[in-house]
């Protein structure tokens, strides 16, 4: 049975920002997955971007370099 794993979740103020993050990461081949925002987190946009912890450093550097808009970061166990 599939197990949840701890991942870095990036949240967003807008859906457009979430979709821009997905596109940028996909183009740069940085692993990640768009997910519905877990109910325990409150944010304007109902989507989040989940990154495996093994890619965290590369992802954070990428976000800073490209100045990708996001709201906050969380760590949470997700599929």
């Amino acid at each position, binding site marked *: 049975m*599939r197990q949840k794993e701890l991942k870095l979740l990036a949240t967003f103020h807008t859906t457009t920002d979430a979709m821009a993050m997905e596109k940028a990461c996909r183009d740069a081949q940085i692993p990640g997955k768009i997910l519905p925002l877990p109910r325990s987190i409150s944010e304007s946009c109902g*989507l989040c971007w989940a990154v495996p912890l093994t890619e965290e450093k590369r992802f954070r550097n990428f976000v800073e370099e490209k100045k990708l808009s996001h709201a906050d970061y969380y760590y949470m166990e997700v599929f």
Partner: protein
Amino acid sequence: MAVIIDAAGKACPLPVVLAKKAIAALEQPEEVQVIVDNTTAVQNLTRLADSLGAQALTHQDSEERFTVSITPGAGTIDKAAGRNDACQIMGQAGPTVYAVGSNKMGRGNDELGGVLMKSFIYSLCQLGDKIPDTVIFFNSGAYLTAEDSPCLEDLKALAEAGTDIITCGTCADFLKTKEHLGVGRISNMYEIVETMNNAGKVVRI
């Protein structure tokens, strides 16, 4: 003496339709041989036989010719003729079926629709013991069950948890995903209609 149906060259789901009609018309159990020209039809006929409690044996006559011999078991003819009380109860609790006719959720913006669908499929996996019994994919929904689907991981988890993931064979063939199916199995319109008709609830996405 076997009943022989030549369904070569006939598009899905005709081979299954013709086979089922022939079995239903039998006066006594006897072998029904169906000639087809592709392996999808062989698989569909084998599944039909299983669902009717019959035995199917396939012989490959040549590169594009297969003979599927269906031997009825007890109750096969009655089941094929629809004389089966389990399927004729209306309005009762029954299987939950999701019908996904697109790889986009909603209309108006395709980019948004694609993102929503990924999110939807992920959420479907979170239903625990309330996951659907069957999810049917057709038209561009067939892209979602292909090897390169962005939802593959989630759909595989759903299948592992017991959901029957089926993709319309005609759609998979047209969209060229049939040879690259990543999860579940290929089905036909006959089974799709039957599945929806026998469901307690059908959710159309």
